[in-house]
């Protein structure tokens, strides 16, 4: 294991992608993730890779598709409105089954909004704004170290399912520095190894096999339905295999918070503060936002008084929380929006109010 390094989130994310084997990066500047393309522009050529500053996010997502359909690993990053511009491309890659790892360092919206951290891209990430029946697994790290690990791990996950995978972090994670242990560089695969592992990848038929096609259009609805059913099977596997969450003393908590990413760290401290006031509170931290870790909610003690979705968004995750809770507990919301971030004390105070209203 390497020694710890103090790194700015965005730079650590870029380095994690490189070590994970993404030697192709296509991106367009947008705050608060500019350190990523900047880092890639300096570092990728050292690994025999390629950095292209795309003319737009629309171009970037399509370059990513092009790069990845050759079997090479591609990393893509942007921030909220830039991700909105990629929706057609994301839906396309799902339909064509092309694995790409995408990072959204999200900010406040809607529209241009602001550049301070937000989580209001929850719906954009988990429900998708592309057309049609598709899903993208979404991971939500809470620290620089976890981001690094999730990005690194997302690469083989995307490959395994032949599907894009998204990491949803926010501007705060991108801009802060924490000590991180960087993972080892994955072994570089030769072109032949790559093609052996990814027999679907295009590389020219070399007059040795039938020509291959990567497609998204299926004019015959029978064929499109069959293809969609095939995709749905993959999504079902993901639903079984991917859900990931962390639980903190839910056993005898009056309040169970649900929070992801940066917000979960604030909630963690709020829980400590509540404890000093004699209120026991627990936390469910979804690490996958899609598939949403519904099983976590079975671990809530029946004596719990309220489940509180705690978000930098106006109740976006709350919809999934309600669905998972399925009427077993009242579900309440604590949120800030537009780039405002509550302090732990603020969360604790509002939680107390909610609890008192229920008691």
């Amino acid at each position, binding site marked *: 294991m390497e020694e710890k390094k103090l790194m700015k989130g965005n730079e650590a994310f870029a380095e994690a992608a490189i070590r994970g084997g993404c030697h192709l990066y296509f991106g367009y500047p947008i705050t608060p993730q500019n350190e990523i393309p900047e880092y890639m522009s300096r570092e990728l050529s050292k690994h025999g890779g390629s950095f292209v500053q795309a003319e737009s996010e629309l171009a970037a997502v399509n*370059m990513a598709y*092009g790069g*990845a359909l050759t079997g090479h690993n591609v990393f893509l990053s942007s921030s909220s409105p830039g991700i909105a511009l990629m929706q057609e491309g994301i839906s396309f890659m799902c339909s064509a089954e092309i694995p790409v790892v995408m990072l959204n360092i999200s900010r406040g919206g809607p529209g241009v909004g602001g550049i301070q951290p937000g989580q209001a891209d929850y719906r954009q990430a988990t429900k998708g704004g592309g057309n049609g029946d598709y899903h993208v697994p979404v991971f939500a790290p809470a620290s620089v170290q976890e981001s690094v690990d999730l990005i690194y791990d997302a690469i083989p996950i995307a490959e395994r399912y032949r599907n894009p995978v998204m990491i949803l972090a926010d501007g705060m994670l991108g801009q802060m520095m924490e000590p991180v242990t960087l993972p080892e560089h994955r072994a570089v695969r030769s072109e032949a190894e790559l093609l052996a592992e990814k027999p679907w990848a295009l590389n020219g038929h070399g007059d040795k096999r039938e020509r291959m096609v990567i*497609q998204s259009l299926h004019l015959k609805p029978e064929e499109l339905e069959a293809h969609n059913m095939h995709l749905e099977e993959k999504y079902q596997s993901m639903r079984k295999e991917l859900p990931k969450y962390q639980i903190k003393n839910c056993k005898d908590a009056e309040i169970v918070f649900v929070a992801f990413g940066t917000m979960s760290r604030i909630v963690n401290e709020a829980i400590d503060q509540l404890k000093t006031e004699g209120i026991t509170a627990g936390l469910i931290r979804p690490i996958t936002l899609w598939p949403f870790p519904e099983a976590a909610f079975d671990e809530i003690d029946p004596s719990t008084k309220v489940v509180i979705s705690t978000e930098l968004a106006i109740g976006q995750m709350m919809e999934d929380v309600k669905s998972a809770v399925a009427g077993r507990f009242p579900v309440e919301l604590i949120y800030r929006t537009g780039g405002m971030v509550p302090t732990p004390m603020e969360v604790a105070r509002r939680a107390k109010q909610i609890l008192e209203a229920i008691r």
Partner: protein
Amino acid sequence: MKTVFEYTRGMRPVTTTYCPGCTHGIAHRLVMEVLVEKGLLGDTIGVSPIGCSILSHDYMNVDMCESAHGRAPAVASGIRRALPNKTVFTYQGDGDLASIGAGEIIHAAHRGELFTTIFINNAIYGMTGGQMAPTTLIGQKSTTGVDGRKKEISGMPLRISELLATIDGAVFVERVALNTPANVRKAKKAIEKAFTVQQMGLGFGLVEVLSTCPTNWGLSPVDSMTWLEENMIPYYPLGNFRCPEEVK
């Protein structure tokens, strides 16, 4: 007995879904003939965006991928950066390249991406049923301009070769037509040069191919050839706009 003409093995032995007399078929064949003659068939990846030719991957005997409407140049850029030793081309219609994909083609040229674009200018949206394209001629009828294109409303038709030729990275730009045997032969030469430019790593190359769309023009295939000659060529002059010394 000598074989003077035979269908290239670059084309798969299937029947295309193109309308009778549509020159997409000729253009396809020329590209494949060039790749066969250059020995590149096995080392090529083609990109077919949405448009009548989206199914060209069923016809062309090379690895191919579809792309979203207009985005083929971005996709090709991605492929080419991933595979620096392969040959890559896009095959795009005029709605695709000149309208929704104008930004992408300009920036592929701007970066001097090392791929070749075959640009089929048939002055109309084929696949969607004959709507006006940026290349539709003044007075030409379309389903979104039933009285013919008017300059006041839609501007003058866009001349893509002239526009791209102003970009340094577009080192090869030529406009050809498929209306006569002589022009078909010239078209093939241009396509060949464009791929040579790519092989030599000189920059981005584009061949604009004036083509027919008998169905949406409402003309017979033979009359379409005449219409192309009499109407398109005067506005879209044939010829080379840029060619590197090395290839001349």
